[in-house]
């Protein structure tokens, strides 16, 4: 058994080591190799190698292979379920028929319109929620007074399922894209706002004190210390907001729309067109996964200054 230990304690290394390597700082060059110490103590116990510790290449392949296996099992199970168990096409459709319906909807150009409408609603609503949520979140984060006036009501609104006001928004703003963007805004804004406010408030007081000792103005402390410190919180809020926004899109379109994936699902349900209904659901799922993935990419890029372990 070979033991290899790094230490800064000179006494420890002499006490425990058979040989010492002395390394230079920073680049870790070896200054002195192989200083025999000669106080060798017998190894205390053999350490069993960790079963799960494998080469990084293998681990990466495994992280792809395992979820892929699950996916294939689900797809095959779906096809078999549709062909041999739930054979009534009023209630269920095998995967192959869903795929055919998807291709047909795409060929006719209908699917692209639904995707575009839903995506626009989501994008506009989330964009407005980001601008408003971050601005107000900062205000509430830095101002005790603003917090006292508003905090309890923001919490109440956050807890209220705001999709409930959708019929009202459709009455006010019409059946088009704007009313659904408004629903998305309402559902997405609170996680962004609340996360931004807590991020600003959670700024390390010592980092603020450093700025104060350099004679920073209040505006400088906000812009150069509190805002950067709150960025990870904001990004988390945005990711949550997107997830809630997708729910807002679908619910909004169920209440009243002329196009969109929620509209496709609703009309397909009414006409017992189960394959088209599944096309709508799967497209929504893909949209959600894609946007969450994109948000994670942005987070990773924006937060490169953080430790790698914090990211995963």
């Amino acid at each position: 058994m070979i033991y290899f230990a790094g230490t800064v304690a000179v006494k420890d290394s002499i006490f425990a080591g058979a040989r010492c390597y002395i390394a230079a700082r920073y680049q870790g060059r070896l200054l002195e190799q192989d200083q025999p110490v000669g106080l060798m103590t017998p190894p205390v116990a053999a350490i069993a190698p960790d079963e799960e510790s494998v080469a990084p290449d293998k681990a990466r392949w495994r992280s792809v292979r395992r979820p892929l296996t699950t996916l294939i099992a689900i797809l095959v199970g779906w096809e078999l379920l549709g062909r041999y168990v739930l054979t009534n096409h009023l209630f269920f459709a095998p995967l192959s028929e869903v795929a055919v319906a998807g291709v047909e909807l795409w060929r006719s150009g209908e699917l692209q319109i639904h995707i575009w409408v839903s995506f626009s609603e989501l994008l506009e609503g989330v964009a407005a929620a980001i601008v408003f949520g971050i601005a107000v979140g900062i205000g509430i984060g830095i101002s005790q007074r603003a917090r006292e006036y508003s905090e309890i009501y923001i919490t109440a609104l956050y807890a209220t399922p705001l999709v409930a006001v959708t019929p009202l928004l459709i009455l006010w703003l019409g059946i088009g894209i704007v009313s659904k963007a408004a629903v998305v805004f309402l559902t997405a804004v609170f996680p962004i706002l609340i996360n931004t406010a807590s991020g600003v408030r959670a700024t390390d007081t010592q980092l603020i004190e450093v700025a104060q000792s350099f004679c920073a103005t209040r505006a400088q402390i906000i812009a150069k210390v509190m805002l950067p410190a709150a960025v990870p919180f904001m990004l988390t809020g945005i990711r949550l907001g997107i997830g809630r926004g997708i729910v807002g899109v679908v619910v909004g379109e169920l209440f009243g729309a002329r196009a969109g994936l929620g509209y496709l699902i609703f009309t397909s349900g009414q006409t017992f067109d189960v394959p088209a209904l599944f096309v709508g659901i799967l497209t929504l799922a893909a949209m959600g996964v894609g946007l969450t993935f994109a948000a994670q990419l942005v987070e990773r890029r924006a937060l490169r200054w953080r430790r790698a372990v914090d990211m995963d």
Partner: protein
Amino acid sequence: MAPEHAASVEVEHLDMEFVARGRRQKVLADIDLQIAPGEFFVIVGPSGCGKTTLLRILQGLARPTAGRALVGGREVLGPGTDRGFVFQNDALYPWRNVTRNVGFGLELQGTDKREAAARAQAMIDLVGLRGFETYYPHELSGGMRQRVNLARALAIEPAILLMDEPFAALDALTRETMQQELLRIAAAAGTTVVFITHQIDEAILLGDRVAVFSPRPGRLKEILPIELKRPREAGVKQSAAFQAYVSRIAHLIGHSA
């Protein structure tokens, strides 16, 4: 940064009280100090002797209950760019790389970008971090982070450097290296230094004079001039003169505890 840039420090009849859990607590009692321009002044004492509070008062982060502190002949009423503060835990901005951390104070002052970059680079070179400009704090070791912390304080060319146990969190080997580095850097920068520590050998190695504080409330017990010639190498710690200072200060602290 010529030595004439350094400022003097005076502390006059200074008292400091805190109210904690409804009880008034005196942390500093009747402190009087005169520190000459360019002097390396070390305050040593056990925890609870108010040494960090005194440093915060000098920086302008806290106001004394009574008495006053003067830097360069002017009363301290708030933070000023004539003073650089080196915090105990490095307190670097994790989203800024080395260059942008070092240049932080200059950026706040609105210094011209090119000049700021040149000054930041000069400080990075001075503290021995050339080649690490683009590294983020989490990519640096504890010793390197304290070098950045020191460079950040020096970049605004302060007339006085206030250091609050800057090496306390470092391991023994790194601490010894950093002590030597600080001696070199302080000599090069020529500023007045007020340095706080609870380590007796660190105080003697670094200081022109060492002030011994006693705790609860913090009182100035005695000021010892350290007559060891400079430049001081780590080997000076083995000398008889050094050991005599150690036992003298240990005796002073022991009596107060």
